[in-house]
């Protein structure tokens, strides 16, 4: 079976990992870093992803997308309250958010697909083989639409998504593999945009999830906003400047807030300094850890309610938890560790890098699916109750939250009017009484043969598979015939749209290749400039002055080209510089050989 990789598609950062002789490993990129920032920028030369795109956050804020995960499987109304925080513009089409980048609009799965493609290429380069299959992680509390959107993203990126797995449970697999833990564990997963708590029972290689809870809109992003808001108020009162009309400075503030937050996990105070627009000087202030903690206490408290609810659903008291595991970058904050420790009454574990543990766990699950690991099995649950709307707009629950998946439920439908040919079914997900307070997943019309009222008997089966994704089938109990059901998701892309996006992704692949080429060429140029400058310093005495000035001219020409957007121009200047520096290179080589090999010429030894 072809290799399956594990992918953590995060709000802030994404990673890809694979199983290497029974050990999960994250895959580094050209820069040796395993983390790919989940940022996509539209440049004049096409789309770029990751570290390179991150540079565009302040240079090109309107066309640089970050935290796209917050929009997966959502409509515009869902995110109305936070629109002001994002510099790029959002619209909606067919119940799905669209992000405007230049002339085109992209759905969140398309943006996510660009990140997935970057990870796919990285894995292919590292492993030297084509990668087409993946396990992708999602927050445990993701609903059906958000999971389906993630699966769509995989398809658009050319990946067969064999499994959608929950992030906290993935982390438990990584820990379970390493430490052979037994007992009841709580995984507290506080990431860039989402919070999850999962309570599991580990016994003889079975990882049984007892309960899960969370908030898919609560993460490090929210903490950064609190800090940024503090800075903005400060700037407004001290300098009388409103930065909201300066998207680039707003981004700088956001990044500075993030930097301060990260810094304060180690330091007790930190200096903040940001350049203000229109020659207004700099905004500087000190932020202490105490101030930060007071500022975000309410956010941390909001993570504890889901923890208590999960414990209640699992029928456990906090002291019944044997181990607590921390996952996600936000758990690096001392205040988070302290509050978690207080709630569960024990020191939490964080031996595995909280940024990498989810991807590592996804690689373990990938290995289980490919038949490599056979002694471990994850039994996960559906986080939210699934039901249908009944008379009076009430939700009737069919599959309760925290039911082990796969799970199925059957419901019999009939007609109320003679000759009625259809029954409308509205599928919902959530814990509230009324249909309108829950998440609408889909509506469809069940076809019924025209018969007297009450005679037709159509059995509808709702099945939640191991990915936590719903499928529906219906069969006529009188004839035994199954019928196909076309379900229009309320907040999702249709099959046709996904197909179109897959096609588009091939079309745009050319642009993407150009963008990638440009970045790589720039990096090569940068490396050549650095080494040449060093050689010139070391070997200046070995060459004629005219050669040296030729090198200096070629260096400055390459530096100029590097700033431009034409990879071919950069290549040409690289060739020029190599040409100009050839005498220097040969001279230095000869010099070192002379010293090392007692005067032999290059021609003598080659």
């Amino acid at each position, binding site marked *: 079976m072809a290799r399956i990789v594990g992918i953590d598609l995060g709000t802030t950062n994404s990673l890809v990992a694979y199983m290497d002789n029974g050990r999960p490993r994250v895959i580094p990129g050209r820069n040796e870093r395993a983390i790919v920032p989940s940022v996509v920028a539209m440049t004049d030369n096409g789309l770029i992803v990751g570290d390179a795109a991150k540079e565009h956050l302040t240079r090109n804020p309107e066309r640089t997308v970050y935290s796209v995960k917050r929009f997966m499987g959502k409509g515009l109304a869902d995110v109305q309250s936070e629109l002001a925080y994002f510099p790029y513009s959002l619209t909606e089409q067919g119940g799905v958010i669209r992000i405007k980048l230049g002339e085109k609009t992209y759905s969140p799965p398309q943006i996510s697909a660009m990140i997935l493609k970057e990870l796919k290429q990285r894995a292919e380069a590292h492993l030297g083989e084509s990668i087409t299959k993946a396990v992708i992680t999602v927050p445990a509390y993701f609903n059906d*639409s958000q999971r389906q959107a993630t699966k769509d993203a995989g398809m658009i990126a050319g990946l067969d998504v064999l499994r959608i797995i929950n992030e906290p449970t993935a982390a438990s697999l990584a820990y379970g593999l390493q430490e052979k833990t037994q007992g009841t564990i709580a995984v507290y997963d506080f990431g860039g945009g989402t919070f999850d708590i999962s309570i599991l029972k580990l016994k003889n290689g079975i990882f049984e999830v007892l309960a899960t809870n969370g908030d898919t809109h609560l993460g490090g992003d929210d903490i950064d906003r609190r800090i940024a808001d503090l800075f903005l108020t400060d700037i407004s009162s001290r300098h009388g400047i409103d930065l909201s009309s300066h998207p680039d400075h707003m981004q700088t503030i956001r990044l500075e807030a993030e930097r301060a937050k990260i810094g304060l996990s180690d330091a007790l105070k930190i200096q903040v300094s940001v350049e203000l627009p229109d020659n207004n000087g700099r905004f500087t202030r000190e932020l202490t850890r105490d101030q930060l903690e007071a500022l975000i206490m309410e956010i941390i408290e909001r993570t504890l309610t889901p923890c208590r609810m999960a414990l209640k659903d699992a029928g456990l008291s906090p002291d019944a938890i044997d181990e607590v595991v921390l996952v996600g970058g936000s758990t690096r904050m001392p205040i988070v560790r302290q509050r978690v420790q207080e709630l569960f009454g024990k020191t939490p574990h964080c031996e595995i890098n909280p940024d990498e543990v989810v991807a590592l766990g996804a690689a373990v699950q990938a290995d289980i699916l490919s*038949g490599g690991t056979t002694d471990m099995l994850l039994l996960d649950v559906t986080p939210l109750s699934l039901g249908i709307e009944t008379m009076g707009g009430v939700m009737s629950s069919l599959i309760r939250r925290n039911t082990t998946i796969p*799970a199925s439920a059957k419901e019999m439908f009939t007609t109320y009017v003679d000759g009625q040919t259809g029954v409308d079914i509205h599928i919902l997900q959530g814990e509230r009484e009324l249909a309108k307070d829950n998440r609408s997943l889909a509506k469809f019309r069940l076809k019924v043969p025209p018969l007297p009222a009450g005679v037709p008997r159509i059995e509808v089966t709702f099945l939640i598979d191991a990915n936590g994704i*719903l499928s529906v*089938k219906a069969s006529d109990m009188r004839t035994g015939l199954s019928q196909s059901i076309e379900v229009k998701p309320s907040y999702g892309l*249709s099959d046709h749209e996904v197909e179109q996006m897959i096609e588009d992704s091939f079309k745009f692949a050319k642009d993407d290749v150009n963008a990638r080429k440009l970045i790589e060429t720039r990096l090569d140029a940068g490396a050549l400039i650095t080494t040449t400058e060093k050689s010139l310093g070391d070997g200046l005495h070995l060459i004629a002055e005219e050669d040296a000035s030729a090198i200096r001219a070629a260096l400055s020409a390459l530096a100029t080209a590097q700033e431009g957007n034409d990879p071919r121009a950069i290549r040409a200047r690289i060739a020029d510089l190599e040409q100009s520096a050839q005498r220097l290179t040969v001279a230095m080589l000869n010099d070192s050989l002379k010293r090392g090999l007692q005067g032999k010429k290059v021609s003598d030894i080659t």
Partner: protein
Amino acid sequence: MDHQQTHSSNPRELQMARSMCWHCQSEVSGEYFCDRCVKVQPVSKETDYFTCFGFPRRLTIDPGKLEAKFYELSRAFHPDFYQNKSETEQSISLGNAATLNSAYRTLRDPIQRVEYLLDLEAGSVKEIRNSPPADLFEEILELQDTLDEYRASDRTSDAGQQLRTQLQAEQVTLEQRKRDMETQLQQLFTDWDLLQDRGEATSQARSERDRLLKQMREILSNRTYVKSIVNDLVATIG
């Protein structure tokens, strides 16, 4: 949500009896796997949850044994282990795992377990009771009055506080009553299991069986009633 489902070609033989392997057509005598071709077999629609776990139809179940069997069957059926298999096998694995999970959820909880058994032995028990059980009639009527009074009262006033204390005491009483019913049920579980173990086919055994089923049904329905009253109480007084 899968955008479109096409199940019209679902092979009919999947729904046929377990007696024949869907793959090699040989007689299936093994539990869930064909002896000859070792292919997984679908759990038949007629298989009840007790049989699915290989347990007799008894009401007292050792949770440890149930869990061990659940884990063993999960290892046999879970879709994770069928990724490299044919589409038919994947679909059987998915269906079996879903059935197994329902079975475990039902058998694990004593109340759901006895409700399920009553359903198997004597048809559905899930009718909702609208009137209080006879021995609770007076008490419940009084409680409803107190609840109404409390809802209408100023909750911060002394009178309100007093009503609240009264309701809290009532809650404790009702919860105790619910526990008593559960203890009674437990005893009936033992009686039922003993009767089944004797395996007699006499008319006396039959009437004993009917009596036990009737009693369990009665208690379950009273318990459901009391439980909903308690929920109501908790929702009102917080």
